[in-house]
């Protein structure tokens, strides 16, 4: 590990001024960054520990929530307001990693964990994300876990966060502060597709700090679910995951949200399927048609073509279950 300095800050201003130092990195729980430092993939020379900042969950008049970037993943999933109003988010967080890691991980760090695959960690392998221009061994290699949507010839890694798939479905906004002022970005615009620059995962600029995530209130608390399919039943990254939320008006779909995990370089909001479903009857046939439309441009690699069918099935099954739910398990 490259040597570094360490500063724990208690004021945002201090974080922002230290964050402009060359080689500075913000430190959350460290569950991703410390690992990458040990592998010499990340080599910060100054760690600015921001776990003491933005540790609250606040609500607005309409029932929406602002979740501080420093709140631990476990604390989000345990918060009564999150569990009652955004059960999808609690479920997605609880589907990720292990209890130990969720106790350490912060919301900001979860959003900013690297989009990655096993080749990214292997210093014998070619990886455009680790070393731009060096090539991608995953595309012709073992790629069971890789992307089927939005990949490029340069990179097929997937964003591993479960939490972000729920946030994408819930229309969350990322609040950012930085040397040139503060700004907000929709979560769905925050992460990038790989294109020809897979070394850049997000739109965050140098020195910028995530301060909170904003969740607008919605009518989905009664019909929403997070389904994660993986190679073992717990403590594994998603092959495919589906965050789904429905609001019905009689038998018709008044409002629907769908996002997929494990399939792309970013949390994948299923806009095509949503558009196909709006105002339609909530029937399995329409769900299947919408899933088909969403996955129309999906491309499999040697080992992951199964994900295309799997994603469609999990979408349809999630929506069928949600539409059948009587007074709905939350």
């Amino acid at each position, binding site marked *: 590990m490259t*040597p570094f*300095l*360490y500063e724990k800050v208690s004021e945002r201003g201090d974080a922002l001024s230290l964050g402009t130092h060359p080689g500075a990195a913000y430190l959350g729980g460290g569950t991703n960054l*410390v690992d990458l430092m040990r592998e010499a993939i990340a080599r910060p020379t100054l760690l600015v520990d921001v776990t003491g900042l933005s540790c609250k969950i606040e609500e607005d008049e309409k029932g929406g929530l602002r979740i501080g970037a420093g709140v631990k993943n476990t604390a989000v999933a345990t918060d009564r307001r999150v569990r009652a109003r955004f059960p999808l988010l609690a479920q997605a967080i609880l589907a990720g990693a*292990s*209890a130990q890691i969720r*106790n*350490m991980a912060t919301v900001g760090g979860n959003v900013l964990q690297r989009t990655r695959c096993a080749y990214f960690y292997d210093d014998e392998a070619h990886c455009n994300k680790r070393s731009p221009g060096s090539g991608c061994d995953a595309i012709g290699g073992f790629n069971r876990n890789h992307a089927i949507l939005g990949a490029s010839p340069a990179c097929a890694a997937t964003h591993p966060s479960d939490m972000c798939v729920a946030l994408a479905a819930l229309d969350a906004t990322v609040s950012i502060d930085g040397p040139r002022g503060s700004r907000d970005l929709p979560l769905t615009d925050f992460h990038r597709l790989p294109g020809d620059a897979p070394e850049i995962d997000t739109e965050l600029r140098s020195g910028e700090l995530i301060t909170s995530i904003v969740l607008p209130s919605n009518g989905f*608390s009664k019909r929403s679910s997070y389904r994660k399919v993986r190679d073992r039943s717990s403590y594994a990254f998603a092959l495919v995951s589906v965050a789904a939320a429905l609001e019905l008006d009689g038998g018709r779909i008044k409002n629907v949200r769908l996002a997929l995990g494990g399939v792309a370089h970013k949390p994948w909001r299923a806009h095509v399927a949503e558009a196909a479903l709006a105002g339609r009857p909530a029937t399995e046939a329409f769900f299947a048609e919408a899933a088909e439309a969403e996955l129309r441009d999906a491309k499999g690699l040697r080992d992951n073509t199964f994900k295309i069918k799997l994603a469609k099935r999990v979408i349809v099954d999630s929506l069928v279950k949600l539409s059948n739910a009587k007074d709905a398990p939350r």
Partner: protein
Amino acid sequence: MQFVINGRSLDADVDLRTSLLDLLRDHFGLSGTKKGCNQGACGACTVLVDGNRINSCLALAVQYQGRKITTVEGLTSNGALHPLQEAFVAHDGFQCGYCTPGQICSAIGMANELRTGVPSYVTADVAAEAITVDFDEIRERMSGNICRCGAYNGIIEAISETLGTIPLPEAKDAP
């Protein structure tokens, strides 16, 4: 740096790169906490910080100065085993024993989480007030601790039998 480990205040002059796991094992000789994968994937290094379970391999020691750290060595009182340790012996909750300190600290952390109402991925209704602790809940909640010997049946029996009677680590921390 100043640490509070198993109720004792300890000083260490360590490199900033030192993980909490290496601090415990190499600097304080507390070798009960084990290093398996050193990357968050096995749970052998689980310790409690202010009663919450974490993986000490992914933690930089410097982040945990002044916090109450409890390791497996801090669970006995006056030489007597913790009830959960007794239960692991009674139910054959281990074979080689390498994962055991992590399993035990993790189970104590899990008991705290159940008491404070932390739901899990298998909790049928995350919004419900009460959580029914059954086999599936324990399995899911303990999935961050891998046992290479596959002693899972004994581990779950030991935990189920002891749940509810596990004293909070806070209560044990007093010098």
